[in-house]
């Protein structure tokens, strides 16, 4: 099935040709763009002013990474697509982000647990890609690595505080782990460098400290990297892309 799918002019990687670098760049960019949009929903609604600023800053980091990756993907592809073409003019089925980042924010514990799971993954990802032979990719990843470490400090501190906090905060944090754990295997579906083990160690130690349990249920969901999304991505894109869809080519 997947070998027949052509995604908006991005040729699908074939076993012979190996993985398609443009497609990989777009997938990582989509992760960052969708998460930036989700985190932006917290602005003016976070539990305290410092968190409003923190989540806004983290969202901006992800947005900046997405922009750099889309621009680089467009240059590699050589078909004249801009960062806006990737971000604002592709339909849901062309987005290749993992399901984890498109999940609704839920309560604050939910957002912090999602942050922990994703930030720990990105630390490994960017560490790997900062050694890329593609100098632009290596540069983008080298910068994003420092940011991801900082994001992880923030999310893990909150997960520990909430998990090891009151009965109420503990039960909410545990509910978040139970709900989100099923989206974690997908993060490593295409990883070649075995960083799943390091991720499991980092996340496991933080959850231990937070007195939170990894769910026993092994059920895992995936599909985002192939463009098959949960029902939550469509409304997110509709809101994000509305301006460009209504007024194509509009500029500030």
């Amino acid at each position, binding site marked *: 099935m997947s070998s027949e799918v052509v995604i908006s002019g991005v040729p699908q990687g074939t076993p012979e040709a190996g993985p398609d670098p443009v497609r990989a760049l777009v997938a990582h960019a989509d992760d960052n763009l969708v998460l930036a949009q989700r985190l932006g929903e917290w602005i003016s609604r976070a539990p305290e002013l*410092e968190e409003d*600023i*923190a989540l806004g*800053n*983290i*969202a*901006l*980091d*992800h*947005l*900046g*990474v997405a922009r*750099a990756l889309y621009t*680089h993907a467009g240059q590699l592809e050589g078909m004249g697509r801009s960062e806006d073409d990737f971000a604002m003019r592709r339909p849901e089925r062309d987005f290749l982000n993992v399901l984890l980042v498109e999940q609704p924010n839920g309560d604050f514990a939910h957002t912090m647990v999602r942050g922990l799971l994703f930030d720990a993954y990105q630390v490994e990802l960017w560490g790997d890609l900062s050694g890329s032979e593609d*100098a*632009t990719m*290596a*540069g*983008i990843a*080298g*910068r*994003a690595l*420092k*940011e991801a470490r*900082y994001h992880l*400090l*923030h999310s893990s501190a909150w997960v520990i505080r909430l998990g090891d906090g009151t009965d109420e905060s503990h039960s909410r944090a545990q509910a978040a782990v139970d709900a989100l754990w099923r989206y974690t295997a997908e993060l490593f579906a295409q990883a070649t460098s075995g960083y799943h083990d390091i991720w499991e160690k980092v996340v496991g130690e933080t959850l231990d400290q937070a007195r939170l349990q990894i769910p026993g249920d092994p059920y895992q969901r995936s599909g985002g990297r192939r463009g098959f999304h949960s029902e939550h991505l469509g409304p997110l894109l509709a809101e994000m892309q509305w301006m460009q869809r209504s007024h194509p080519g509009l500029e500030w």
Partner: protein
Amino acid sequence: MDAAQSSGAGVVTATATLDLDRAREVASRVVDPEIPVLTIADLGILRDVRIVGDRVVAIITPTYSGCPAMIQIAEDLRSALGAAGFDESDVVTAHHPPWTTDWITPDGLDKLAAFGIAPPGSEVTCPRCRSGSPRVVSRFGSTACKALMACSSCGEPFDHFKEF
């Protein structure tokens, strides 16, 4: 480029009139829109200035991925170069190697402290009373590059330029 070079003596003359040292000087005086006491040269954002054909090319490196000031910096560069008579200029973003706070010049670090922002480094001292025992109020401050701290001695809050 090839077309320009083969188009004759006019292009060669135009190239000769572009003064690289002056272009560098103009570009390096552009200030950071968020921290206007610092120039982009102080911050290590300005990587290089070159003359390519009849154009000035300024190469900059983004600091934080999400720093919105980069757009303003690119615009300010073009406008400063234009005002100095360099009508044709390009601002190119170089991602590699990634920017680090190690690239801030010693002069830039002094200017940061004088402006009331504790410069990056392992020992953070209060920019007002010089006491060395601050506490972190928030890891995320008013811009991507800063954290909010408070001095345990004089009690004043201050920004810290994060080590990156």
